[in-house]
């Protein structure tokens, strides 16, 4: 159950009044996210920017009717997603994510060699457990974020879409399921595979 935050309510009022500052604030908060949503559905960066541009027209047309029953972020991103999907269907470029739900079938979260084999006293237990990640100074923190960003970019499309929406953009599981037309199990499995790979990438980096 969403309630429009006071900040978002002010934004919406400001937009309706044609206030430049409201425009700037909306771009700052949601601009990059809107482009990221578009990129989940169309392959080229140019196309994604055009999707955002087209979606923005729909946003302006609809802002007078927006009732705040969903959050502003959800409403904006949904318009972008619908715009992207329409364009994708026209250009026959998108594949429904439900068809990609089996992506990564058989992948394991951690290299099986790191666990003790079945002949031993403690089969399946850690042989090479995770080492502590030392706290890093600020400089390295942005490098760690680059590692995560790269790891996400290398994911297959449905895994990339789910982890982007859930962990990068903060959508709920239900919102992601509805947006990408996935069952609860599919969504969770895709998220699991994606997160496992990202954690592995960070572990490599931290070594």
């Amino acid at each position, binding site marked *: 159950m969403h309630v429009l935050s006071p900040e978002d309510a002010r934004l919406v009022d400001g937009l309706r009044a044609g206030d430049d500052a409201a425009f700037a604030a909306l771009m700052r908060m949601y601009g*990059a996210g809107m*482009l990221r949503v578009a990129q989940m559905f169309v392959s080229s960066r140019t196309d994604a920017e055009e999707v955002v541009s087209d979606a923005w027209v729909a946003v302006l047309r609809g802002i007078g009717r927006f009732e705040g029953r969903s959050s502003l972020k959800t409403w904006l991103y949904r318009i972008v997603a619908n715009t992207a999907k329409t364009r994708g269907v026209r250009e026959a470029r998108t594949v429904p994510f439900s068809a990609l739900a089996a992506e990564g079938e058989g992948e394991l*979260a951690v290299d099986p060699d790191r666990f003790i084999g079945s002949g031993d006293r403690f089969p*399946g237990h850690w042989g090479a457990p995770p080492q502590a*990640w030392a706290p890093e100074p600020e400089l390295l923190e942005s490098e760690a*974020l680059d590692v995560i960003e790269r790891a996400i970019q290398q994911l297959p499309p449905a895994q990339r879409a789910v*982890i982007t929406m859930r962990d990068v953009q903060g959508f709920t599981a239900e919102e992601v399921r509805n947006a990408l037309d996935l069952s609860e199990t599919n969504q969770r499995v895709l998220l*699991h595979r994606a997160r496992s790979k990202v954690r592995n990438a960070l572990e490599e980096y931290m070594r």
Partner: protein
Amino acid sequence: MRLDRELACNEMVELVTAYLEDALAPVDRERFEEHLVFCDGCDRYLEQMRATIVATGRIDRGHLPAELEERLLEAFRGWRAS
């Protein structure tokens, strides 16, 4: 509390997402948490997964390309004037 079957670490790492999503059946949740008490490796793995999720939430701090934002601003001003 006696559990019928302990979880092995290679099972734990496959259950971690379901655990964090609160999607484990109560019996499995108990087994999961019991294992954490006695296993540093899995405890650390869970903490690293949590840290990964938090860090992932920080990557979307970018902004639109200037030229695109300029286009959107023009559309906004055009709309406001109509």
